[in-house]
């Protein structure tokens, strides 16, 4: 599977390994996610316990879930504003002192916000209203403290009902008609209430109604009204709204301004009806926890009470310490970048409004069947996850309703985010460092291996001779690579020793063979002298010829070894190779009568740095080779031309070609191209001597077949002289 990995360089392999290390932060992330799940579960359990606890308080409190236990919410108000349980029944006299201080603190002011109709010259101080709602026993009370600069009472002479300052009451029954009452006053004291039609002016019944009672009392700033409604009139699922109408012109009696307790648009479609249980709400208030919301839901999945809010008070961003050290600055920079990357959880999110009347979550069905459950859902704007836990409220064996506690997982998300951030930041830094360190290490390692490779390559010449057995191990510490360098050195030394032995072998061999040869040779000489008759004997002559051949062989063997020794002490001089060739070929022609020589020189003077004697020896061997393998009566061409790299000497002869793969080997010692003449020696040392001399002159040698395939070309490329 990982076959491809084998073909990579060490550098790439290390980079892959570094990449593999990214598993670690991935695991860290996994861990954080798992931990979040764990924390969420913990939160669920805690909420479930809370829900259970609250449910226990509400167990068997059937009366809290009675239909008429609900108090209609003031139209347009938030759910946390509700009718207060009053300390006593109210004396309807326009004096608010009997409402109790607790309730009075909750008085709401309506000014511009409640004004739906007003003239352009409306002055805020001229018309305003303070309002409070309360209940006691079967009665619902409303208090209005109206600021009015000019009180106009009803003029009985006029046909229109609301021709003075008056109060309109709207009761919105669920799915039913709207009931409207108009309360008018002819003066301070009891007001008259009429059930009216949609225009608020026409009484539906001829007589005023008795169940709505209100008293008006003039005050310093205007007037105050106390109003009483029987609770059955509003009941469950109903909504209640009030309008205070101001008439300021005594003559025209025109409606000048209106303050409404609910936003009154053109469209007065009945909205949802919210019914809360004040008792439950009050109970829950004490249990409320920050950042959590408690819902009480009845069997019909109707919301009976809700307290608290999910959104925490907006945290004031701490100014934060100014980064001082470079480390802190770096941390801050990374932190800012990570915020963008990791999607910082938003503190502000939008969720279900508290005034919804029905919860339809799947979980609720289960809980209402008696099963405590917990679940999570997304906030309305999908920004955060909200944990919910529901616990049934029981009455004996039946379920009265349920308590649901909700809490946003923001705190957990926040800590998860912080964890992830610090994890990411530290991983990033550590990885940057580790990666850099690894890359530097890998680079250093490959450089060292490369250097070792280069030195090792250079240690042995292309011909396989050990040039420098010393791999510089000084640069290599005592690690594996250093050891490798040292073992290569020792290997090269041994190889060098063996090569020396091999190089010395022909010499030793020749030396050892010379002694017995000398015995044979001297014995033959004595024999010839002593025995006159033997002189001229053909066998004697053959024996002497054999001795002669043996001597030639032995002398060839020692020649290479002696040559190296001789060259070492020789000095190289500037030498006109062209002239040397001219002289040499001139002299050679006489010696090799079987071949013709053709010399071509590009210029008359072509200089190299060399030793004339050795160049002559090199030519000896080249010509010997050409003569030996050249077809008799053909021409041997010797050519010297100038090339870009130096002076190129070529010796071309017609005859046998060399096989593929032999080109390099022919210059090795003891490699012969073949035998042509059984009486001449073929130790293959001639071209080896050529190479030795060429090496000494820093020249390159090679052999190739002629392009037309009729023979071979031996080339020697001499470098130019310095000057």
């Amino acid at each position, binding site marked *: 599977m990982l076959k491809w990995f084998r073909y990579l360089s060490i550098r790439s392999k290390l980079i892959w390994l570094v990449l593999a290390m990214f598993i670690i932060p991935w695991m860290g992330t996994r861990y954080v996610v798992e931990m979040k799940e764990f924390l969420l579960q913990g939160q669920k359990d805690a909420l479930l316990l809370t829900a259970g606890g609250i449910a226990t308080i509400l167990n068997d409190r059937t009366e809290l879930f009675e239909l008429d236990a609900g108090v209609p919410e003031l139209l347009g108000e938030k759910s946390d504003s509700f009718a207060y349980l009053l300390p006593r029944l109210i004396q309807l006299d326009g004096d608010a002192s009997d409402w109790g201080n607790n309730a009075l603190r909750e008085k709401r002011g309506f000014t511009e916000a409640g004004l739906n109709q007003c003239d352009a010259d409306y002055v805020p101080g001229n018309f305003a209203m303070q309002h409070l709602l309360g209940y006691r026993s079967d009665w619902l009370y409303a208090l209005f403290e109206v600021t009015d600069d000019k009180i106009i009472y009803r003029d009985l002479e006029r046909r229109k009902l609301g021709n003075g300052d008056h109060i309109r009451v709207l009761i919105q029954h669920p799915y039913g008609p709207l009931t409207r009452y108009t309360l008018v006053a002819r003066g301070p004291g009891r007001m008259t209430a009429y059930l009216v039609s949609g225009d608020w002016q026409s009484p539906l019944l001829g007589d005023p109604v008795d169940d709505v009672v209100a008293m008006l009392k003039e005050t310093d700033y205007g007037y105050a009204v106390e109003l009483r409604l029987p609770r059955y009139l509003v009941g469950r699922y109903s909504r209640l709204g009030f309008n205070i109408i101001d008439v300021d012109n005594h003559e025209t009696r025109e409606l000048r301004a209106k303050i409404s307790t609910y936003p009154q648009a053109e469209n007065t479609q009945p909205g949802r009806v919210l019914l809360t249980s004040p008792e439950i709400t009050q109970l829950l208030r004490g249990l409320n926890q920050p950042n959590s919301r408690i819902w009480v839901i009845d069997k019909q999945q109707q919301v009976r009470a809700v307290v608290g809010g999910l959104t925490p008070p907006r945290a004031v961003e701490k100014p934060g310490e100014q980064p001082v050290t470079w480390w802190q600055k770096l941390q801050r920079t990374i932190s800012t970048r990570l915020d963008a990357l990791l999607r910082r959880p938003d503190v502000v999110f939008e969720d279900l409004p508290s005034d919804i009347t029905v919860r339809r979550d799947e979980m609720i069905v289960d809980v209402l069947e008696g099963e405590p459950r917990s679940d999570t859902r997304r906030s309305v704007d999908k920004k955060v996850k909200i944990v919910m836990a529901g616990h049934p409220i029981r009455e004996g064996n039946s379920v009265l309703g349920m308590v649901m506690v909700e809490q946003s997982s923001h705190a957990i998300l926040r800590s998860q985010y912080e964890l992830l951030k610090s994890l990411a930041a530290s991983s990033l830094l550590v990885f940057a460092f580790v990666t850099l360190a690894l890359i530097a290490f890998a680079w250093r390692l490959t450089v060292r291996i490369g250097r070792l490779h280069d030195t090792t390559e250079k240690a042995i010449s292309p011909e396989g001779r050990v040039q420098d057995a010393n791999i510089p191990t000084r640069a290599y510490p005592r690690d594996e690579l250093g050891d490798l360098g040292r073992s290569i050195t020792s290997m090269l030394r041994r190889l060098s020793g063996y090569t020396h032995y091999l190089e010395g072998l022909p010499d030793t061999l020749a030396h050892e063979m010379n002694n017995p040869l*000398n015995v044979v*040779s001297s014995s033959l000489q004595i024999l010839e002298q002593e025995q006159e008759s033997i002189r001229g004997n053909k066998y004697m002559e053959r024996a002497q010829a054999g001795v002669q051949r043996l001597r030639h062989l032995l002398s060839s063997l020692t020649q290479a070894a002696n040559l190296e020794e001789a060259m070492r002490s020789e000095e190289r001089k500037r030498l006109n190779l062209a002239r040397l060739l001219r002289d040499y070929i001139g002299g050679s022609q006489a010696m090799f009568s079987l071949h013709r020589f053709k010399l071509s020189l590009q210029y008359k003077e072509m200089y190299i740095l060399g030793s004339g004697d050795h160049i002559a020896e090199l030519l000896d061997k080249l010509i010997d080779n050409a003569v030996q393998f050249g077809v008799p009566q053909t021409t041997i061409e010797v050519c010297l031309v100038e090339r870009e790299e130096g002076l190129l000497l070529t010796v071309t002869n017609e005859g046998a070609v060399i096989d593929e793969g032999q080109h390099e080997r022919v210059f090795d010692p003891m490699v012969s191209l073949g035998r042509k003449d059984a009486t001449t020696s073929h130790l293959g040392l001639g071209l080896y001597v050529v190479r030795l001399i060429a090496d000494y002159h820093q020249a390159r040698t090679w052999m190739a077949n002629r392009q037309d395939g009729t023979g071979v070309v031996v080339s020697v490329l001499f470098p130019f002289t310095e000057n």
Partner: protein
Amino acid sequence: MSHTIAIVEDDPHQRDNYADALRAQGHAVVAYSNKPTALEGFKNALPDLVILDIMLEDEMDGGFDICRELRHMSPQLPIIFLTARDSDIDRVSGLRLDAWDYITKPVNLQFLGVRVASLFRIASTLKHAADDGPVALKLGDLELNEASLSVSWKEQPLNLTLTEFWVVESLAHNVGKVKSYEALMQVTKQSYVEKNTINGYIRRIRKKFKQVDPEFEYIETVFGTGYRWHKDT
């Protein structure tokens, strides 16, 4: 007058062959096979000429040691190294010990006789005349005296072997003319000579001249043919 020739050679066949050949030429021969017996013999009676092999039995440089001892006993005793060792180092070592000649195996016994005769002649010249005798050849800065085997360049004596002396003499007798390799091979009076052997002699001769005169350029190579002594002298 019969001369005594001592042969030190560890190979009995070669030793006997040399001895037989030299005896046939009328010389008295004593033969030794190793250093201790040879030195023992030389203490009793010093021969007139010594032929030494370098490697003697287990002693790599036994011949050189004997030569050193002999020089202590007699500074003018003709000593010839006759050995299979052909390296320049050995030749230089031999000559540093004041050997008169250094020839390599295989040897031509006839030529060996000629050499021995020449050396005896030289030795007797040196023994009987206080000076070097008349100069045989004077060629510019070169002075050759065959009788005493002495060569000098710019009046500085050179230490040449017998063979080297013959080569210089042969070149000097033919100033300006090329001495071919074949001709020079004859001059060295050895059984088997190749072009390279001649090159070797010339190289060593040039080196010796250059030791006394770094500007020495009179032995000229005629590439592919041979050598000649430069005309200008």
